[in-house]
Protein backbone atom coordinates (compact mmCIF):
# COMPACT_ATOMS: atom_id res chain seq x y z
CA UNK A 1 0.00 0.00 0.00
CA UNK A 2 2.78 2.41 0.91
CA UNK A 3 4.87 1.61 -2.16
CA UNK A 4 1.94 2.41 -4.43
CA UNK A 5 2.17 6.13 -3.72
CA UNK A 6 5.78 6.24 -4.86
CA UNK A 7 4.74 4.69 -8.13
CA UNK A 8 1.93 7.25 -8.50
CA UNK A 9 4.27 10.23 -8.36
CA UNK A 10 7.67 9.38 -9.77
CA UNK A 11 8.29 12.95 -10.94
CA UNK A 12 8.38 14.30 -7.41
CA UNK A 13 12.01 13.33 -6.94
CA UNK A 14 12.89 16.36 -9.04
CA UNK A 15 16.32 17.24 -10.38
CA UNK A 16 19.23 18.25 -8.19
CA UNK A 17 19.65 21.75 -9.61
CA UNK A 18 16.61 22.99 -7.74
CA UNK A 19 17.25 25.09 -4.66
CA UNK A 20 16.93 23.40 -1.30
CA UNK A 21 13.30 22.67 -0.39
CA UNK A 22 13.37 24.39 2.97
CA UNK A 23 16.11 26.54 4.44
CA UNK A 24 16.18 28.48 7.70
CA UNK A 25 18.76 31.12 8.61
CA UNK A 26 19.13 32.79 11.98
CA UNK A 27 15.61 31.86 13.04
CA UNK A 28 14.79 32.84 16.59
CA UNK A 29 11.69 33.21 18.69
CA UNK A 30 11.19 34.89 22.04
CA UNK A 31 8.25 34.88 24.37
CA UNK A 32 8.02 37.74 26.87
CA UNK A 33 11.66 38.70 26.19
CA UNK A 34 12.77 35.18 26.96
CA UNK A 35 14.49 33.43 24.09
CA UNK A 36 12.63 30.17 23.38
CA UNK A 37 15.06 29.00 20.68
CA UNK A 38 17.54 30.25 18.19
CA UNK A 39 19.18 31.64 16.32
CA UNK A 40 18.92 28.44 14.31
CA UNK A 41 20.38 27.61 10.90
CA UNK A 42 19.38 24.43 9.14
CA UNK A 43 17.93 23.10 5.94
CA UNK A 44 15.82 20.16 4.86
CA UNK A 45 15.95 18.96 1.30
CA UNK A 46 13.77 16.50 -0.55
CA UNK A 47 14.40 12.98 0.58
CA UNK A 48 15.65 14.09 3.98
CA UNK A 49 14.28 13.89 7.46
CA UNK A 50 15.40 16.22 10.20
CA UNK A 51 14.96 14.89 13.68
CA UNK A 52 14.46 17.69 16.19
CA UNK A 53 15.44 16.50 19.63
CA UNK A 54 15.26 18.22 22.97
CA UNK A 55 13.83 17.82 26.41
CA UNK A 56 10.49 19.15 27.61
CA UNK A 57 10.36 22.91 27.20
CA UNK A 58 13.25 23.05 24.76
CA UNK A 59 11.09 24.76 22.15
CA UNK A 60 10.43 21.88 19.76
CA UNK A 61 6.72 22.56 19.41
CA UNK A 62 7.31 26.30 19.16
CA UNK A 63 9.85 25.74 16.38
CA UNK A 64 7.40 23.63 14.41
CA UNK A 65 4.61 26.16 14.89
CA UNK A 66 6.89 28.93 13.63
CA UNK A 67 7.87 26.85 10.61
CA UNK A 68 4.23 26.03 9.89
CA UNK A 69 3.34 29.72 10.02
CA UNK A 70 1.17 29.54 13.14
CA UNK A 71 3.61 31.74 15.05
CA UNK A 72 5.61 34.69 13.78
CA UNK A 73 9.37 34.42 14.18
CA UNK A 74 11.19 37.29 15.90
CA UNK A 75 14.13 37.14 13.54
CA UNK A 76 15.75 35.23 10.74
CA UNK A 77 14.39 34.06 7.45
CA UNK A 78 12.60 31.04 6.10
CA UNK A 79 13.10 30.14 2.45
CA UNK A 80 11.04 27.68 0.49
CA UNK A 81 12.74 26.47 -2.70
CA UNK A 82 14.93 29.56 -2.55
CA UNK A 83 12.11 32.09 -2.21
CA UNK A 84 10.49 33.73 0.77
CA UNK A 85 7.06 32.10 0.92
CA UNK A 86 3.78 33.99 1.32
CA UNK A 87 1.10 32.56 3.59
CA UNK A 88 -0.60 30.58 0.86
CA UNK A 89 2.48 29.01 -0.74
CA UNK A 90 3.73 28.01 2.69
CA UNK A 91 0.37 26.45 3.46
CA UNK A 92 0.60 24.46 0.22
CA UNK A 93 4.10 23.23 1.05
CA UNK A 94 3.57 22.27 4.68
CA UNK A 95 1.47 19.65 6.43
CA UNK A 96 1.45 20.07 10.20
CA UNK A 97 0.64 17.34 12.68
CA UNK A 98 0.28 18.96 16.10
CA UNK A 99 -0.84 17.93 19.55
CA UNK A 100 -4.45 18.92 18.94
CA UNK A 101 -6.29 16.37 16.83
CA UNK A 102 -8.56 18.79 14.89
CA UNK A 103 -11.26 16.14 14.99
CA UNK A 104 -14.91 16.55 15.83
CA UNK A 105 -16.03 14.00 18.40
CA UNK A 106 -19.55 13.91 16.91
CA UNK A 107 -18.40 13.14 13.39
CA UNK A 108 -17.42 9.74 12.06
CA UNK A 109 -13.91 8.82 10.98
CA UNK A 110 -14.65 9.25 7.29
CA UNK A 111 -16.54 12.53 7.84
CA UNK A 112 -13.62 13.96 9.80
CA UNK A 113 -11.19 12.85 7.13
CA UNK A 114 -13.37 14.22 4.33
CA UNK A 115 -13.45 17.65 5.98
CA UNK A 116 -9.71 17.87 6.58
CA UNK A 117 -8.93 16.55 3.11
CA UNK A 118 -11.32 19.09 1.61
CA UNK A 119 -9.60 21.84 3.55
CA UNK A 120 -6.04 20.93 2.61
CA UNK A 121 -6.48 19.25 -0.73
CA UNK A 122 -5.67 15.67 -1.64
CA UNK A 123 -2.60 14.16 -3.27
CA UNK A 124 -3.61 12.91 -6.69
CA UNK A 125 -4.42 9.24 -6.89
CA UNK A 126 -5.28 8.91 -3.22
CA UNK A 127 -8.64 8.49 -1.59
CA UNK A 128 -9.89 8.26 1.96
CA UNK A 129 -10.38 4.49 1.87
CA UNK A 130 -6.77 3.78 0.93
CA UNK A 131 -5.46 6.32 3.46
CA UNK A 132 -7.48 4.67 6.22
CA UNK A 133 -6.14 1.32 5.08
CA UNK A 134 -2.56 2.57 5.35
CA UNK A 135 -3.00 3.72 8.95
CA UNK A 136 -4.89 0.59 9.98
CA UNK A 137 -8.32 2.17 10.39
CA UNK A 138 -10.04 0.25 7.59
CA UNK A 139 -13.45 -0.81 8.80
CA UNK A 140 -13.73 2.13 11.20
CA UNK A 141 -15.19 4.53 8.60
CA UNK A 142 -18.56 4.91 10.31
CA UNK A 143 -17.25 4.97 13.90
CA UNK A 144 -17.64 8.31 15.67
CA UNK A 145 -14.36 9.97 16.61
CA UNK A 146 -15.47 10.10 20.27
CA UNK A 147 -15.43 6.31 20.37
CA UNK A 148 -11.82 6.07 19.18
CA UNK A 149 -8.89 5.55 21.52
CA UNK A 150 -6.15 8.17 21.70
CA UNK A 151 -3.95 6.01 19.50
CA UNK A 152 -6.69 5.55 16.93
CA UNK A 153 -7.29 9.30 16.87
CA UNK A 154 -3.60 9.73 16.18
CA UNK A 155 -3.90 7.26 13.35
CA UNK A 156 -6.78 9.29 11.94
CA UNK A 157 -4.52 12.37 12.02
CA UNK A 158 -1.87 10.33 10.24
CA UNK A 159 -4.41 9.40 7.55
CA UNK A 160 -5.07 13.11 7.00
CA UNK A 161 -1.32 13.68 6.75
CA UNK A 162 -0.99 10.82 4.30
CA UNK A 163 -3.59 12.41 2.01
CA UNK A 164 -2.01 15.87 2.14
CA UNK A 165 -0.30 16.99 -1.06
CA UNK A 166 2.29 19.04 0.88
CA UNK A 167 5.93 18.03 0.33
CA UNK A 168 7.13 19.02 3.81
CA UNK A 169 5.76 17.25 6.86
CA UNK A 170 6.09 18.92 10.25
CA UNK A 171 5.42 16.20 12.78
CA UNK A 172 5.19 17.19 16.41
CA UNK A 173 5.73 14.10 18.57
CA UNK A 174 4.12 11.79 16.02
CA UNK A 175 4.94 8.76 18.15
CA UNK A 176 2.90 9.90 21.14
CA UNK A 177 0.02 7.57 22.07
CA UNK A 178 1.01 5.00 19.46
CA UNK A 179 1.76 1.33 20.09
CA UNK A 180 4.86 -0.38 18.70
CA UNK A 181 3.10 -1.17 15.45
CA UNK A 182 2.00 2.46 15.23
CA UNK A 183 5.56 3.69 15.71
CA UNK A 184 6.66 1.41 12.90
CA UNK A 185 3.78 2.83 10.83
CA UNK A 186 5.00 6.40 11.33
CA UNK A 187 8.50 5.34 10.31
CA UNK A 188 7.15 3.61 7.19
CA UNK A 189 5.08 6.68 6.31
CA UNK A 190 8.04 9.05 6.73
CA UNK A 191 10.15 6.67 4.67
CA UNK A 192 7.58 6.64 1.87
CA UNK A 193 7.22 10.42 2.04
CA UNK A 194 10.97 10.90 1.63
CA UNK A 195 11.25 8.42 -1.20
CA UNK A 196 8.34 10.18 -2.90
CA UNK A 197 10.37 13.38 -3.00
CA UNK A 198 9.10 14.89 0.22
CA UNK A 199 10.81 15.87 3.43
CA UNK A 200 9.95 15.74 7.10
CA UNK A 201 10.80 17.48 10.34
CA UNK A 202 10.09 15.21 13.28
CA UNK A 203 10.26 16.28 16.89
CA UNK A 204 10.90 13.73 19.58
CA UNK A 205 12.12 13.88 23.13
CA UNK A 206 14.47 11.08 22.25
CA UNK A 207 12.79 8.01 23.66
CA UNK A 208 11.89 6.45 20.34
CA UNK A 209 13.81 5.01 17.46
CA UNK A 210 14.36 7.38 14.56
CA UNK A 211 12.91 6.65 11.15
CA UNK A 212 15.29 4.38 9.19
CA UNK A 213 15.99 6.96 6.51
CA UNK A 214 18.43 9.74 5.68
CA UNK A 215 18.18 11.57 8.95
CA UNK A 216 19.99 14.54 10.37
CA UNK A 217 19.71 15.70 13.91
CA UNK A 218 18.89 19.10 15.33
CA UNK A 219 19.25 19.24 19.09
CA UNK A 220 17.46 22.00 20.97
CA UNK A 221 18.77 22.55 24.44
CA UNK A 222 16.63 24.00 27.19
CA UNK A 223 19.27 26.71 27.58
CA UNK A 224 19.84 27.33 23.87
Amino acid sequence: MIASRDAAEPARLGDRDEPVLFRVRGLCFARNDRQVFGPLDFHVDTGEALLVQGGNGAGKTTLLRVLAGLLRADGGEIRLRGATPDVESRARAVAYLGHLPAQKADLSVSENLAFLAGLHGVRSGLDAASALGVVGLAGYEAVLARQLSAGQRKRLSLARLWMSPAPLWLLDEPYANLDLEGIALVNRMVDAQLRGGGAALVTTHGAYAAPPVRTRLLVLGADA
Partner: protein
Amino acid sequence: MWTAARALAIRDLQLLLRRRGDALQPALFALLVVVLFALALGNEPATLSRVAAGTLWVAVLLAGLLTLDGLFRGDAEDGSLEQWMLAPVPLAWLVLVRVATHWAVTALPLLCVTPLLAELLGLPRAQLPVLMAGLALGTPLLGLLGAVVAALTIGIRRAGVLLALLALPLYIPVLVFGAGGVAAAAQGGDPWGGLLLLAAGLVAALVLAPLTAAAALRIALT
Protein backbone atom coordinates in the same frame (compact mmCIF):
# COMPACT_ATOMS: atom_id res chain seq x y z
CA MET B 1 -11.33 27.43 -2.49
CA TRP B 2 -14.82 26.10 -3.19
CA THR B 3 -13.75 22.62 -2.14
CA ALA B 4 -12.66 23.95 1.25
CA ALA B 5 -15.85 25.99 1.61
CA ARG B 6 -18.00 23.01 0.71
CA ALA B 7 -16.09 20.75 3.10
CA LEU B 8 -16.60 23.24 5.93
CA ALA B 9 -20.30 23.77 5.19
CA ILE B 10 -20.93 20.03 4.94
CA ARG B 11 -19.10 19.45 8.21
CA ASP B 12 -21.21 22.05 10.01
CA LEU B 13 -24.42 20.56 8.66
CA GLN B 14 -23.31 17.05 9.69
CA LEU B 15 -22.52 18.33 13.17
CA LEU B 16 -25.98 19.90 13.31
CA LEU B 17 -27.59 16.61 12.29
CA ARG B 18 -25.76 14.85 15.14
CA ARG B 19 -27.07 17.42 17.62
CA ARG B 20 -30.48 18.25 16.24
CA GLY B 21 -31.69 19.66 19.55
CA ASP B 22 -29.17 22.49 19.34
CA ALA B 23 -30.81 23.85 16.21
CA LEU B 24 -34.06 24.48 18.04
CA GLN B 25 -32.52 26.26 21.02
CA PRO B 26 -32.35 29.82 19.60
CA ALA B 27 -35.94 29.62 18.41
CA LEU B 28 -37.14 28.27 21.76
CA PHE B 29 -35.17 30.96 23.56
CA ALA B 30 -36.77 33.68 21.43
CA LEU B 31 -40.17 32.17 22.17
CA LEU B 32 -39.47 32.33 25.91
CA VAL B 33 -38.33 35.96 25.71
CA VAL B 34 -41.53 36.83 23.87
CA VAL B 35 -43.59 35.00 26.47
CA LEU B 36 -41.74 36.81 29.28
CA PHE B 37 -42.48 40.16 27.67
CA ALA B 38 -46.12 39.23 27.20
CA LEU B 39 -46.46 38.17 30.84
CA ALA B 40 -44.66 41.24 32.16
CA LEU B 41 -46.62 43.72 30.09
CA GLY B 42 -50.02 42.37 31.11
CA ASN B 43 -52.93 41.19 29.03
CA GLU B 44 -53.65 44.40 27.19
CA PRO B 45 -53.59 43.46 23.47
CA ALA B 46 -53.22 47.08 22.38
CA THR B 47 -50.07 47.58 24.48
CA LEU B 48 -48.60 44.30 23.27
CA SER B 49 -49.16 44.93 19.59
CA ARG B 50 -47.59 48.38 19.96
CA VAL B 51 -44.32 46.95 21.34
CA ALA B 52 -44.46 43.71 19.34
CA ALA B 53 -41.87 44.66 16.70
CA GLY B 54 -39.35 45.93 19.24
CA THR B 55 -39.83 42.87 21.42
CA LEU B 56 -39.28 40.52 18.49
CA TRP B 57 -36.11 42.34 17.48
CA VAL B 58 -34.73 42.11 21.02
CA ALA B 59 -35.70 38.44 21.27
CA VAL B 60 -33.96 37.58 17.97
CA LEU B 61 -30.91 39.62 18.91
CA LEU B 62 -30.55 37.93 22.30
CA ALA B 63 -31.07 34.49 20.81
CA GLY B 64 -28.29 35.22 18.34
CA LEU B 65 -26.03 36.39 21.15
CA LEU B 66 -26.57 33.08 22.91
CA THR B 67 -25.05 31.05 20.07
CA LEU B 68 -22.21 33.47 19.38
CA ASP B 69 -19.65 31.93 21.73
CA GLY B 70 -19.87 28.62 19.90
CA LEU B 71 -18.96 30.20 16.58
CA PHE B 72 -15.20 29.55 16.82
CA ARG B 73 -14.67 28.17 20.32
CA GLY B 74 -15.13 24.50 19.53
CA ASP B 75 -12.80 24.78 16.56
CA ALA B 76 -10.21 26.66 18.61
CA GLU B 77 -10.23 24.07 21.38
CA ASP B 78 -9.88 20.94 19.27
CA GLY B 79 -7.24 22.38 16.94
CA SER B 80 -9.46 22.73 13.87
CA LEU B 81 -8.70 26.43 13.78
CA GLU B 82 -5.00 25.65 13.44
CA GLN B 83 -5.79 23.57 10.41
CA TRP B 84 -7.95 26.39 8.99
CA MET B 85 -4.93 28.66 9.21
CA LEU B 86 -2.71 26.10 7.54
CA ALA B 87 -5.14 25.51 4.69
CA PRO B 88 -4.12 27.00 1.34
CA VAL B 89 -7.21 29.25 1.30
CA PRO B 90 -7.59 32.66 2.97
CA LEU B 91 -8.68 32.42 6.59
CA ALA B 92 -11.21 35.23 6.02
CA TRP B 93 -12.92 33.10 3.40
CA LEU B 94 -13.31 30.21 5.85
CA VAL B 95 -14.61 32.65 8.48
CA LEU B 96 -17.20 33.92 6.00
CA VAL B 97 -18.31 30.38 5.18
CA ARG B 98 -18.50 29.52 8.88
CA VAL B 99 -20.60 32.62 9.63
CA ALA B 100 -22.88 31.88 6.69
CA THR B 101 -23.55 28.27 7.75
CA HIS B 102 -23.92 29.41 11.35
CA TRP B 103 -26.54 31.92 10.20
CA ALA B 104 -28.30 29.24 8.18
CA VAL B 105 -28.55 26.83 11.11
CA THR B 106 -29.30 29.29 13.93
CA ALA B 107 -30.95 32.42 12.49
CA LEU B 108 -32.90 30.82 9.66
CA PRO B 109 -35.05 28.61 11.96
CA LEU B 110 -35.60 31.74 14.04
CA LEU B 111 -36.81 33.65 11.00
CA CYS B 112 -39.17 30.80 10.19
CA VAL B 113 -40.92 31.00 13.57
CA THR B 114 -40.96 34.81 13.67
CA PRO B 115 -44.37 35.13 11.93
CA LEU B 116 -45.73 32.80 14.61
CA LEU B 117 -44.21 34.87 17.42
CA ALA B 118 -45.49 38.04 15.76
CA GLU B 119 -48.96 36.55 15.78
CA LEU B 120 -48.59 35.71 19.48
CA LEU B 121 -47.78 39.32 20.26
CA GLY B 122 -50.52 40.63 18.00
CA LEU B 123 -48.25 42.47 15.58
CA PRO B 124 -50.45 44.12 12.94
CA ARG B 125 -50.24 41.94 9.82
CA ALA B 126 -49.36 44.91 7.65
CA GLN B 127 -46.10 45.38 9.56
CA LEU B 128 -44.99 41.76 9.21
CA PRO B 129 -43.32 42.12 5.76
CA VAL B 130 -41.26 45.07 6.98
CA LEU B 131 -40.27 43.18 10.12
CA MET B 132 -39.29 40.08 8.14
CA ALA B 133 -37.30 42.10 5.61
CA GLY B 134 -35.50 43.88 8.43
CA LEU B 135 -34.68 40.61 10.17
CA ALA B 136 -33.55 38.97 6.93
CA LEU B 137 -31.07 41.79 6.41
CA GLY B 138 -30.30 42.32 10.08
CA THR B 139 -29.57 38.78 11.32
CA PRO B 140 -26.64 38.16 8.94
CA LEU B 141 -25.33 41.58 9.85
CA LEU B 142 -25.58 40.68 13.55
CA GLY B 143 -23.81 37.40 12.81
CA LEU B 144 -20.93 39.14 11.03
CA LEU B 145 -20.50 41.76 13.75
CA GLY B 146 -20.72 38.99 16.34
CA ALA B 147 -18.05 36.98 14.51
CA VAL B 148 -15.55 39.80 15.01
CA VAL B 149 -16.30 39.91 18.74
CA ALA B 150 -16.26 36.11 19.04
CA ALA B 151 -12.86 36.04 17.32
CA LEU B 152 -11.53 38.78 19.60
CA THR B 153 -12.56 36.90 22.74
CA ILE B 154 -11.45 33.43 21.61
CA GLY B 155 -8.33 33.63 23.76
CA ILE B 156 -10.42 34.05 26.90
CA ARG B 157 -11.58 30.80 28.38
CA ARG B 158 -14.99 31.84 29.64
CA ALA B 159 -15.98 34.79 27.51
CA GLY B 160 -19.78 34.59 27.96
CA VAL B 161 -20.59 37.90 29.66
CA LEU B 162 -17.66 39.79 28.13
CA LEU B 163 -18.82 38.66 24.71
CA ALA B 164 -22.26 40.14 25.38
CA LEU B 165 -20.79 43.38 26.75
CA LEU B 166 -18.67 43.81 23.62
CA ALA B 167 -21.26 42.68 21.09
CA LEU B 168 -24.38 44.50 22.33
CA PRO B 169 -23.08 48.05 21.69
CA LEU B 170 -22.26 46.98 18.13
CA TYR B 171 -25.77 45.59 17.77
CA ILE B 172 -27.45 48.87 18.71
CA PRO B 173 -27.41 50.47 15.23
CA VAL B 174 -28.84 47.29 13.72
CA LEU B 175 -31.61 47.28 16.29
CA VAL B 176 -32.32 50.98 15.80
CA PHE B 177 -32.62 50.74 12.02
CA GLY B 178 -34.44 47.41 12.06
CA ALA B 179 -37.01 48.22 14.73
CA GLY B 180 -37.13 51.82 13.51
CA GLY B 181 -38.19 50.68 10.06
CA VAL B 182 -41.14 48.79 11.52
CA ALA B 183 -42.06 51.75 13.73
CA ALA B 184 -42.00 54.04 10.70
CA ALA B 185 -44.25 51.64 8.83
CA ALA B 186 -46.62 51.52 11.81
CA GLN B 187 -47.04 55.27 11.67
CA GLY B 188 -47.72 55.10 7.97
CA GLY B 189 -44.25 56.34 7.11
CA ASP B 190 -41.64 55.04 4.74
CA PRO B 191 -39.76 51.97 6.08
CA TRP B 192 -37.21 52.00 3.29
CA GLY B 193 -34.72 54.27 5.04
CA GLY B 194 -34.01 51.79 7.81
CA LEU B 195 -34.01 48.79 5.49
CA LEU B 196 -31.61 50.39 3.03
CA LEU B 197 -29.24 51.34 5.82
CA LEU B 198 -29.35 47.72 7.05
CA ALA B 199 -28.60 46.53 3.52
CA ALA B 200 -25.68 48.95 3.23
CA GLY B 201 -24.36 47.80 6.61
CA LEU B 202 -24.68 44.18 5.52
CA VAL B 203 -22.68 44.79 2.33
CA ALA B 204 -19.93 46.58 4.24
CA ALA B 205 -19.84 43.88 6.94
CA LEU B 206 -19.71 41.08 4.34
CA VAL B 207 -16.42 42.52 3.11
CA LEU B 208 -14.87 43.86 6.28
CA ALA B 209 -16.02 41.55 9.08
CA PRO B 210 -14.41 38.31 7.82
CA LEU B 211 -11.10 40.11 7.31
CA THR B 212 -11.23 41.63 10.78
CA ALA B 213 -12.30 38.38 12.41
CA ALA B 214 -9.54 36.46 10.60
CA ALA B 215 -6.93 38.95 11.81
CA ALA B 216 -8.29 38.67 15.36
CA LEU B 217 -8.16 34.86 15.21
CA ARG B 218 -4.56 34.94 14.01
CA ILE B 219 -3.61 37.25 16.88
CA ALA B 220 -5.48 35.15 19.43
CA LEU B 221 -3.76 31.94 18.37
CA THR B 222 -0.21 33.27 18.36
